[in-house]
């Protein structure tokens, strides 16, 4: 089991529903977010391209945040999900600095917080909140080890990219382009 998220940039309209759904599902305090939207404009009028996409923790196979954590609070499950155990976190911020995706932040209560792929929902057989709410249905979630999963098929049949591949982190969030 290797969980992955696939996001179709050709469909994303950048509405930020994933951001609000995450906040209400995971009680993320106002002013903070575990996922966010980026907008990239290239070209000059009228030959322009626009890419909108939802970003979050990439649950890297080779996760620098896990390696650098002095207490073991940052850890990786067998299914690839990277988590932070709040009561083991001392808020040193090393993981925040090490993350090439800027995906971690310090929760006002002190510990470091980030996307969990809605681990608690997966346990109940539900999709992550962002995936289940997206009005453009541009987000997919599933198991890369299963060749018949929607994510495996999409990655086989469509052009894709990952963010900051040069960091060598082997991210598990893929963008269809």
């Amino acid at each position, binding site marked *: 089991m290797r969980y992955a998220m696939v996001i179709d940039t050709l469909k994303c309209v950048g509405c*930020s529903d994933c951001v609000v759904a995450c906040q209400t599902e995971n009680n993320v305090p*106002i002013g903070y977010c575990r996922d966010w939207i*980026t907008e990239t404009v290239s070209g000059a009028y*009228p030959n322009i391209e626009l890419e909108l996409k939802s970003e979050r923790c990439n649950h890297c196979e080779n996760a620098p945040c896990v390696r650098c954590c002095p207490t073991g609070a940052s850890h990786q499950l067998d299914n690839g999900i990277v988590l932070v155990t709040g009561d083991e976190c001392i*808020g040193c911020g090393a993981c925040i600095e090490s993350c090439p995706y800027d995906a971690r932040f310090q929760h006002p209560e002190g510990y470091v917080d980030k996307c969990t792929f809605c681990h608690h929902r997966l346990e109940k057989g539900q999709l992550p909140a962002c995936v289940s709410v997206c*009005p453009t249905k541009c987000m997919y979630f599933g198991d890369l080890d299963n060749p018949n999963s929607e994510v495996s098929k999409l990655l086989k049949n469509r052009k894709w990219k990952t963010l900051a591949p040069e960091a060598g982190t082997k991210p598990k969030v893929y963008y269809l382009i």
Partner: protein
Amino acid sequence: MTTSRRKFIKISALGLGGVATATSAFSMFGSSSYLNELVKQNVTKKLKRTPTYCEVCFWKCAAWTYSDEDGNIQKIIGNETDPHCYGRLCPRGTGGVGMYSDEDRLKTPLIRTNVNGEETFKEASWDEALDLIASKFKNIKEKYGAESLALLKHGSPGKHLEHLFKAYGSDTIAEPAYAQCRGAREAGFALTYGSWVGSPEPTDIRDTKCLVLIGSHIGENMHNSQVQEMSDAIDNGATIITVDPRFSTAASKSKHWLPIKPATDIALMLAWMNVIIEEGIYDKEYVEKYTTGFKELKDHVLNFTPEWAYGITTIKPEVIRETAREMAHAAPAVIVHPGRHVSWYGDDTQRARAMAILNGLLGSWGRRGGFYFKESIKVPKYPSPKYPHPKWDWRDIGEKYPMAQMGITTEIIRAAIPSKDNKYPVKAMMVAGTNITKSIPEKALLEKAMDELEFMVVLDTMPMDVTGYADVVLPECTYLERYDGIRSATNREPSIAVRVPAVKPKYDSKPGWWVAKQIGERLGLGEYFNYNDYKEVIEWQLKQLGTSLEEMNKIGVKHFPRKSGSLYIEEGKDHEFATESGKVELYSKELKNLGFDPLPKYTKHPEAPQGFYRLNYGRAPMHTFSRTANNPNLNDLKSENNLWVNPKVARILGLKTGQEVWLRNQDKITSTFGIKVRVTERVRWDSVYMVHGFGHDNKKLTRAFGKGINDTQMISKTMVDPIMGGTGMRGNFVEILTENPHKTVEI
């Protein structure tokens, strides 16, 4: 649109300031791990699920409100069987929790009072406020007649108050949703097909092969099921053609983006008709069988060649031809989308007619992948006496505009200004669920009208700007805290949805139905409100519909079979349209008889003078009008609007992204607040763009106050549609000021 990461970095950097902070926070966690805590909160904690439909915009998506045992609303999730949302709410619906939790909400009734010569509000009890309203209403009725009481409304609370007003003898009622929004397209399509487009639009986007958007920015307007279906259409490989001077989100998803010169859309559409007719690629069978006036249309567009349109629209002739062919190739699975907010240049009914005619030529109305025949179920009216017949009403106030099929808000506002010719004097006004100071342009006129009113009441959940003009302000509870009318969806299949309170009303706020009933009883109209709780009304209606509140509490949405026949025109069968001729009227005799152009013509509109830029405005997906700017969840996503400026303009004026500027329009109106520049290639060099609904004046909106510019403030010139009275708002030009014009000079 972009959620700021910088913000949290700044905050987390502060948090890291001292080890002591981290340690004390650490000790607060206790023994259970953070993840276990979360699981406990969201999985094991029993959440109650209550059905509702959303009120953050007009799409009315059915949803479930999840609240915990302590009565806190945790989240709102779309109802999976609902055809408005298919289980997926938009950011505003998901962020609807913020409508409830906003601590800036109106908390108690307020009455205008004079303390030492200064006007102010005093907090009042409901009895005090309602007694005052009733006595003022009685007084107006005695002096001028009930007709002089006007209601401007939007959404669910408006429905309850409409009942009150009609019962009292006034049908002086309007909503900005008509003449300031979609009225022109309803008139244009009604003239052609005999029926309104309506809401949601019966566009069969999920099965279309070609979607044509003319200034309609689906994806930035989050009309939920349409956004979802556009996504399905993208998956299915449909062609999207977007006509917009701005590179909208939809434009970025399009095969063809036509960066049209603003205000020239009719010229483009005439050229499309020319190509489709001259090349003989229209749906000949459909045109022959179902339309009238083809010959007149053919003659009319003969000279409107793509070469002619090129000089007007700046769209190259080969692009016009290619896109016209692409539409015809996809026909009848093609949609020339009617749009929604269409009050642009004053010839908007004619532009809507051009869209309607194009759809007629392509044979898309009543066809799969084009427009389907919508259907809804009629919710029986709860027994109530007949309304008295007013001596005059919204029709008379709007009599200058023969095709106005609803009240014209701006005309009702004008009727409040006394003059000798004013046969229909409006003397008091109730405003419910609409922030007219943000939705109605020509602010000077609006302020004069409000000043002339003898009495004004505002019902809202938030201290919107308009509340500042009221004599009495009534705090309505949010949609999550009240019963409301049954939502009957007009869609592919009829369905109903209910709204049941998930929690008790916060503060001293009350539901709109209760306010209407209380005022009604004080006016001696008790028999019109023959119930103690609106729940009884719904229960009665649901029983007539063969269901019950008990069942609806479990399912939220109930579906009914279609009764009006097929979704599309059936092969080999005749279809009669609801027009006078029974056919699609390409040429409109009705318009001809009224003295208007029976076929749409291109009219040249003024262009920006030297140093000025056309002010265009639109929507952001996480906000509804000016209603959500203070919502803590949605404000967090976008707290202010930006002024989109083309890099060429930015170079000339020396503007940089993030720089604060002010605007002054052609009538020397200066924006109250500043706005931050966003230099972007997504906008033309002859226009600037901003998202509507920001620049709030009321300090009580602590998050939204003074953030960005209110586009409506800059719209002091309007172009009125002579056919239906729509308010054209896109002909205003602004100059960009880099110095704060409101700076006080210190000596």
